[in-house]
C-alpha cells in the first residue's frame, strides 16, 4: 500500500530517537544504544528502525554566541546560535532568535526549513522567546 501522505506539504521536524529495547532517548540518532547495545537499522528492513519523536517546545539556554564571521552562503551581518536542554534531558544546538540572550533563560524550540547553506534545504532549530 502506498503512503500518499508523503506528497503532502510536510511541516519541518527534527526528531529524537528512542531505543525500542530500553527506552533511552538520543539526539542526534545513534546506531548502537549506549545502554543496552541494541542496534538501529535506518532502513528498517533487516532490523527494526527506532521510534522517533519530534523535538520542539520549551527548553533552557545553556550557552550562546553571536557570530559575525558567517560561512559561505549566509548573507547576513551576524547570526545568533545557542545550545539548549529539553525537559527530557536531550540537548540540541541551533539558531537563536532572541535579541538579548542570557544563559539559563527559558526559550521555545521551533523547526524551520532553511536554504541558506549551500546544497538542498535542511531543517534547522530556531530557539525563540515564544
Amino acid at each position, binding site marked *: 500500500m502506498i503512503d500518499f501522505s508523503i506528497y503532502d506539504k510536510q511541516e519541518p521536524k*527534527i526528531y529524537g530517537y528512542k531505543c525500542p529495547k530500553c527506552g533511552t532517548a538520543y539526539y542526534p540518532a545513534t546506531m548502537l544504544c549506549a545502554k543496552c547495545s541494541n542496534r538501529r537499522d535506518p532502513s528498517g528492513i533487516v532490523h527494526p528502525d527506532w521510534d522517533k519523536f519530534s523535538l520542539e517546545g520549551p527548553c533552557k539556554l545553556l550557552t550562546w*554566541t553571536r*557570530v559575525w*564571521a558567517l560561512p559561505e552562503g549566509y548573507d547576513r551581518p551576524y547570526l545568533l*546560535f545557542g545550545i539548549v536542554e529539553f525537559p527530557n534531558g536531550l*540537548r540540541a544546538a541551533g539558531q537563536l532568535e532572541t535579541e538579548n540572550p542570557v544563559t539559563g533563560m527559558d526559550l521555545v524550540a521551533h523547526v524551520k526549513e532553511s536554504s541558506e547553506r*549551500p546544497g538542498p534545504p535542511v531543517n534547522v532549530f530556531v530557539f525563540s522567546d515564544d
Partner: protein
Amino acid sequence: MTARVGIVGIGQIKFGNLSEYDLVDIMAYTATDALIDAGILEDRRIIDQIFVANMLGGMINHQTGIASALVSRLDLEPTAAELVENGPASGASAVKLGYMAIASGMANVVMVVGGETMRKVTGWEATDCVATLGHPEAEYDMGLTFPALGGMFARLYMERYGVTERDLALVAVKDHENGSKNKYAHIDGTCTIEAIHDSPNAHVVNNYVAEPLRLFSVCPVSDGAAVLILVNMDSPIVEKFKKKPIRIAGIGSATDTHCMHNRKDPVEMGAVKLSAERAYAMAEVKPEDISFAELHDPFVILELAISEEVGLFPRGKAVEALRRGETGIDGRLPINTSGGLKAKGHPVGATGVSQVVELVRQLRGKAEKGRQVKDPRYGMSVNFGGLANNVITIICAKD
C-alpha cells in the same frame, strides 16, 4: 619489547599565504628541508614509510591520494606511503602512526609530512570546509561553524571561571610576542594589550568574531607544511643521522562525543584529560615534569582550558597563572612558545606536525633568541581533531 622512537630531522615552511603554490609541491619543498636537516637527502630511500597528514586536500584542492603524489614529487618510489586524515589532528595522528610503525618493527625510518593550503579559497569557504567536522544534521546544517562552537565554549568557561575578555587579550599578546620571533610563524607582528583591549579604539580594532571571541582571540587561516623524520633508536640505522634523536617519550589519544552539546558538561574535555593521562603513563612522567607545552588554540580560550585538563594547573586556575606571567617565555611554564595556532597559524593538516617540530627545536636548544625555553627536559603537545572530540597528546624528551 617495542623499539624506542626518536626524531632526527625537522622541516617547516613559514606559514602564511602560499596559495599560488601547489599543495604537494609545498609538502615536498618542506620535506626536502627535513631530509637535509637529517643529513639523508642523497640517501633518502632509507625511509621505509611515509605518513602524510592532510584534512582538506580533497575539498579545497580537489586532490586525493596525496601521499602517492608526494612520493613521486620527492623521487621516493617505491617507499610505502599513506594519507592520514583526522581533521585538524591529522598531524598528530600521523606522528602517532609513524611511532607505531617503528615501535612495531615494521619500519626503521619514517617520514611524517603535514600540509594544507586553505587560502586557495576565501575565508568563508575555508570556514565552511572546516565546519564539516561537525555533526552533519545537528551542527553543520544549523549553520554552526567552529568559531560558533568556540564562542559557546568560551562563554560557558568564562562565566564559570571568571575569565574576562582582557584575559583573552593577554593570551594573544603573549602568543604574538613569541610568534614574532618564530621564523615559521604566519603573523610577524606583535599586539599590545592597550591596542586590543584597553584603548577606546579597541572594540573596533579587535572586533567580535563569535562573541565573546574577538579577532585577536581566533587563529588566522593559513597555508603551510611541517615534516619530521623518525628513527628506530634501537637500530644501527640511527648512526646514519648526524643529529642526536629527540625521543618521543609518550603518546596518548582519546575521543569524546561528536556533538559538543552531548558532553556531560560541555566545559569539560574528557578526551583531553584521558589522552594526556595515557601519554604521561607511557612516558612515565607527571604534569610537574613538563617544561613547556604547545596547546591547540584556534581560540585562545582553549590554551587556558587545555592546560587545566592536562593537569598543568588546577581547574579554573590557569587564568591566574597567565595574569602572573607564568606561561610567558620567561615564566615557570611557557605555553605556546611557537606563538601557538594564534600567531603561528593553523594550516590544519600541518598543525600537529608543526607542534612537534617546535618541541624538537626547543629541546635541541635551537629556538630563536628571545623565545628559547631555559633547559627544557620534557615538551608536550596537544592536538585537536575537532572541538575536543578527538585529541592526541605527544610528549618528547631530551635524554
